[in-house]
């Protein structure tokens, strides 16, 4: 790296990070409560926090909770069951690798695959459509992801995919679930850190009504260590001043109105419907399903999916002690789970949060958990 005038300008600057950590200390002291709890709703935020060891420099009083920010983790069992039932009926399924091991009521797609079902792991919806183009049988893409990924699915349908291709949508929409978390009676959340990449699509104005209704500030933040620290500093400032506002701390990517073209594509193909998020609750408008005009590409209309036959199995007993729901709601942390790191490990996950690379438990496991290394 070059040294210009002895004053190196770099994106990942530990010196600036240390200064921001001091600012966070000052802000929590000024707020004067212990703890001060804020929530982020994005697996990528948790990844960055864990990977750079940021929790070690957060003030002791600052509690940064990971909310329902992992689309794979909140995919509900009946949604997985639909894919499993289709696969067991001999329909070829393509999906993202993370979705393979998400537990359904009785089985995961990986279990179905081991028993002979044909499942292709793909890296994008485009790759799935290309695969279908080379097949002379039906291919169902089991689609997961928040609005960011849903835009890609929508764009593909608009581009005219092959006739043997259809979508089983488990896409989710983030803004409504923030309302649910804010209204939970046990919630301690005093502010939200919103995901920068999702806001690139939706724009930050989408949070304005939320802020008005709940009196809780929302700060849109990026994913570099300095982005996150700056986002938290802004959030604490708003909490200190009792200002319920939306602040955009990711202006290099996010605009107030968002990406209008992407929104147009998204809503042309999808409509929001209510549905359960695993472990959280029924989320009004939280699920994205294909509009009627696209029913010919909707696997739910093209096939008769019978999931009821999967339900005669009792859920595995270990799953009863899984607290993924509370972890995703921000009420508990993985260290409070009796299965974490013992029966439940990435190789052999019990709960969905241990499956996905964006799941809280998986991230904590990968980066050694939230251990306080400051005294060591």
């Amino acid at each position, binding site marked *: 790296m070059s040294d210009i005038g002895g004053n190196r300008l770099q994106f*990942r600057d*530990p010196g600036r*990070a240390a200064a921001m950590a001091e600012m966070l200390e000052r802000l929590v002291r000024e707020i004067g409560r212990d703890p001060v709890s804020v929530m982020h709703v994005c697996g990528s935020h948790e990844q960055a926090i*864990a*990977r*750079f*060891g*940021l*929790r*070690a*420099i957060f003030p002791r009083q600052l509690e940064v909770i990971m909310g329902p920010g992992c689309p794979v983790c909140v995919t509900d069992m009946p949604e997985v069951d639909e894919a499993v039932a289709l696969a067991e009926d001999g329909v070829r399924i393509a999906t*993202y*690798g*993370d979705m393979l091991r998400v537990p359904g009521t009785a089985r995961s797609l990986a279990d179905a695959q081991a028993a002979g079902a044909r499942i292709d*792991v793909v*890296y994008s919806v485009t790759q799935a459509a290309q695969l279908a183009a080379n097949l002379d049988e039906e291919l169902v893409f089991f689609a997961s*992801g928040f609005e960011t*990924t849903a835009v890609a699915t929508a764009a593909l349908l608009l581009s005219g995919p092959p006739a043997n291709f259809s979508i089983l949508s488990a896409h989710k929409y983030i803004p409504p679930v923030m309302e649910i978390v804010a209204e939970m009676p046990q919630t301690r959340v005093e502010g939200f850190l919103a995901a920068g990449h999702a806001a690139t699509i939706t724009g930050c104005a989408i949070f304005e009504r939320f802020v008005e209704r709940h009196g809780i500030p929302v700060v849109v933040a990026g994913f570099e*260590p300095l982005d996150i620290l700056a986002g938290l500093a802004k959030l604490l400032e708003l909490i200190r001043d009792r200002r319920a506002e939306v602040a955009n701390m990711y202006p290099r990517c996010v605009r107030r109105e968002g990406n209008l073209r992407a929104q147009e594509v998204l809503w042309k193909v999808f409509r929001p419907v209510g549905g359960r998020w695993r472990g959280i609750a029924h989320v009004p408008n939280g699920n994205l399903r294909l509009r009627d005009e696209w029913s010919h590409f909707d696997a739910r209309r093209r096939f008769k999916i019978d999931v009821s036959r999967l339900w005669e199995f009792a859920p595995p007993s270990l799953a009863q002690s899984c607290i993924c729901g509370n972890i995703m709601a921000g009420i508990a942390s993985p260290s409070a789970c009796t299965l974490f790191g013992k029966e439940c*490990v*990435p*190789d052999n996950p019990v709960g969905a949060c241990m499956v996905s*690379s964006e799941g809280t438990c998986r991230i904590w*496991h*990968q*980066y*050694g*958990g939230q*251990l306080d*290394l*400051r005294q*060591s």
Partner: protein
Amino acid sequence: MSASRIAPDAKVMLKHGAGGRAMRELIQQVFVGDAKAPADGGIGLAAMDDGAALRVGDEWLVMTTDSYVVKPPFFPGGDIGRLAVSGTVNDLSMMGATEIAALTCAVIIEEGFPRADLERIKASISAACAEAGTAIVTGDTKVMGRGEIDGIVLNTAGVAFTRRVVPDCGLALGDQIIVTGTIGDHGLAVMALRHSLELEGELCSDVAPLNGLIRRALEAGGEGVVAMKDPTRGGLASTLHEMAGKSRVGIVLKASRIPVSPSVQATGELLGIDPMHAANEGKAVLGVRPDAAASVLAALRSHPLGRQAEIVGSCVAQRPGFVILDTGFGLRLLVEPEGELLPRIC
């Protein structure tokens, strides 16, 4: 051992060969069992070190063996032949035995394997032997039917003599940790090729015999070099865990000191693979007493294969068996890779 815990229908999985915890457990449970250490104070199977050390007169005979199954057999920076020689030479060197007496080489070939490729691999074996100052003195060749083996498998074994054995468990508080150059090059070069990522850049395996480099470090550091290991499968993270665990110390690593080439860094970010989890085939990790660290570092840097050597961390009393990473922003634990490294989905 704990065989009673293992399900009767348990199968060996790919993760058991990936160099991480799963592999160590399998070896421990199936092969090591209750193996005893050699009576003469030497190093045997139970130590799970890079090789064995047996007393012969006033010297140690060091021996090791390794099989090589890289896919594809040719990759930027080397091939399976160079790998097979380097891997075994390096295992011997990590025990402190840098004068390689001789190697053996066994080859198992799939029916239909191109003869020209075989000759290319042989030429590469000879060149690597010349670099290491040794030779193949005996060997074996088998051919198997199509589909019964994947292309080609090599096995090499090697013997060397030394007056002082360096184990991988000799770390004590205050010891400095040195890596001999950039990390992750081999793993990411092969992975990028295997997944046909067609990435721009100069991703290139670091595969090389290290006995010349290590000889120089030992001449400079003498008794001050107390532990060595080559960070192959499982990468720097697994190697440091093993060294910390066996030596019962904690290791604090400074991320900013760890040499990583820009193309490895970029590819790692893209694939979601930490270069510290990726394999190296031409690098060593040395544990050195504090007063010997400067001279060992200078000696390493005077060798073409050690130009980018760095002191990357030190041994502490806290958290024995763990590796703590100082990211520059904060601290976290560095964990071992669980199994096979896979590029992330999104």
